[in-house]
C-alpha cells in the first residue's frame, strides 16, 4: 500500500514555465495539476483542494495575488497554502501578502531545484518518488 501523493497546483500563463515546474515536481514524486491564469487556478483549487499552489504573480484576467486572496476568503480553500513566483523587480507589499495564504515568494528567474526544496520544506518529501518521462 502506498501513501497518496501530495497534489500541487501550478498556475502560470507561460507554457514553458508551467511545463518545466510540473516536470520537476512530478519527477520528485508529486502529483501536479496546472492552470494558465488566476481564474482557472481558482476553479482548479476549489475543485481539487491541492496541498500547495505554486503561482505566478502577473497573469492575464486575474493575477496570482488576487487569486490567492480569493482562495483565502473562500472557506473551501482558506487553508490552502501558496508559493508565489514573481518576475517583478521588487518585493510584494506585506499587507497584500497578509490577506493571502502565500507562505513564500520566489523571484524569477528561478531554479527548479530551489522550488523543489521549498516544496519539500512545506510538504515533506514525496513518499514514492516517481521518475516520469517528459512527453
Amino acid at each position, binding site marked *: 500500500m502506498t501513501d497518496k501523493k501530495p497534489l500541487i497546483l501550478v498556475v502560470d500563463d*507561460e507554457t*514553458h514555465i508551467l511545463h518545466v515546474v510540473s516536470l520537476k515536481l512530478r519527477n520528485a514524486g508529486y502529483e501536479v495539476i496546472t492552470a494558465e491564469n488566476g481564474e482557472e487556478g481558482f476553479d482548479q483549487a476549489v475543485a481539487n483542494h491541492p496541498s500547495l499552489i505554486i503561482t505566478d504573480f502577473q497573469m*492575464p484576467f486575474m493575477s496570482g495575488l488576487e487569486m490567492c486572496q480569493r482562495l483565502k476568503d473562500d472557506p473551501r480553500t482558506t487553508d490552502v497554502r501558496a508559493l508565489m513566483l514573481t518576475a517583478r523587480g521588487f518585493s510584494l507589499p506585506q499587507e497584500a501578502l497578509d490577506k493571502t495564504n502565500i507562505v513564500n515568494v520566489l523571484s524569477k528567474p*528561478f531554479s527548479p*531545484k530551489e522550488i523543489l526544496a521549498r516544496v519539500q520544506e512545506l510538504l515533506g518529501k514525496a513518499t514514492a518518488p516517481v521518475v516520469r518521462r517528459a512527453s
Partner: protein
Amino acid sequence: MSFGKWLSLGVGLVAAVLTAVFLFLDPTPPLPIWGNGVSIRIGIAGVFGGLIGLAHWLVMSRFNAELRRLTCHVEVLTKSDVSDLTLEPGMGLAPLALAVEQGMQHLRQRTQKLVSKRRELEIQLRIAEAERRHAEAVLNSIADAVLVTDAFNELALANKAAASVLNFDLGFSRRRPIDEVLDDRALVKLIKDTREGAPSVANLRRHVEHRLTRNGREHVYDVTVAGIGGDAADSEAAAGDGHDALGVVTVIRDVTREREIAEMKSDFVSSVSHELRTPLSSIKAYVEMLVDGEAHDEQTRAEFYNIIQSETNRLSRLIDNILNISRIESGVVRVQREQVSLPSLIREAIDVMLPQARARNIELKDVSAPVFFQVFADKDMVYQATLNLLGNAIKYTPKGGRVTTSIVVDEAARVVRVSVQDTGVGIPPEDVPHLFEKFYRVHQHKKLAQGTGLGLNLVKQIIETVHGGTMTVASEPGKGSSFTYSLPLADNI
C-alpha cells in the same frame, strides 16, 4: 480821448474855476490896460487852469510811461528766464521796481526748485512704471501660476497663468481679499495659514501637492507657498516676535505630465523587468534540468533545446526593440539598405514565431502569392518590425484563433503592402490613435498579456522614420485587427 487826458482836462477846469473865484473875491481892480476887469479875471483863470491841466497831463504821461516800462519789465521777468535784467525807473518807482525784481528772483528760484523736483519725480515715476511693466512682463512670462498676497490677505500681484489656472479675472482682482478672488477654499486656507504660521523661519517655504479639476480633467499641481518676511534679519526678528508674515508668495506648477511620465517610466521598468525575466526563467530552468539529467531521452532533450533557443530569441528580440528605439531616436542607427524579398522575409519571421503560435494553438498562415517583390530596405529592421507585428497578433488572439499574413503590390502607388491580420480581441477605437506611442498600452489588454508598450512604436519608427513608408491599423473590438505597413518598391527608391 484817453482817461488820462480827460482827467487832465478836469484838473485844468477845476484850477480855472478856483482861480476865477479867487480873482473875483479880490477887491483890487485889475490893471487898467487890461480893460474890462471881468474879462481879464476870466482870462487869467482860463490861462491858469489851462497851464495846470497841461502840467498835470505832462506829469501823468511821464508817470504812465514809467509804469508801463515797469510793467513790461515785470512781464519780461515773469515770462523769461533772464534774471540780470536791470531797470532804473524814474518818478520814484525805483524802490518798487527793486522790490518787484527781488520778489521775482525769489519766486523764480522757488519755481526752479519746484520744476527740478517735478522733473525728478517724473523720472522716478517713469522708472517705476517701466519697472512695474517689466516686473509684470516677467511675471506673465512665467509659465507657473504666481500669486502674491499682502499682510491683509489681499491679492497684490498675480500673473496670467494664475488667472487661467485658478479661473479669476486678473483686471478686477487686484487689492481684493484672496477669499473673494479664489473659489478654491483649500488653497485660500493654505495661503492664510502660511501667512499666519510663517513666524517660524523653518516654515517660511513649503511644498504641497494640490489637485484641481480643469476642463473635466484632474491636474496635479506642486504648490510652493512662501511667507514674505523682509530680509533674513527681519524674518528672524519677526520669527522671534511671533509676528505674521508681510505676505505670501504662492507658485503653482502643473506637474500632471511629469507625474504621468514618472508613472510610465515606472511601469516601463516594471514591464521590462518582467519581460526580460520571463524568458530568462525558462532558459535557466531548462538548462538546469538538462544539466541535472532530468531530460531522460533524446526527444525530451531536443524539446528542451528548442525551448531554450526560442526563449533566447525572445529575449534577444526584446533587447533589440529597446536598443533600436533608443538608436533611432538618438539618430545613431546604421541603416544598411539592400534588395529585400518580402515573401522570403515573412516566411522566415513566420518560422520563428511558429513555436509561440503552436503553444497557444493559433494557426499562423501566409496567403501571399509566390511573386518576387523587392524593396530596398534594411532587412534586419523590416524583419524585426514583422516579428513584432506577428508577436502582437499571437499575443492578443485567443487560443484556437488565426493569424494571417499577406502581401499586396500597388503598382499605381509603386508600393508594397504587408498586412498581419488576426482574429484577436481587437482594439477599442479610443485607443487606436495612441497605439504607436511609446510605452502606451491598451488598458483592456493589460490583463490579457504582458508587454512593454515599445513593440509598435519600434515598428512605426522602422517603417516611417527609417524607410519613409507608412503604417496603418484597422481594428474591430471582438473581431480582430489588421496592421499594414507599406514600403516603396525597390525601383522607386
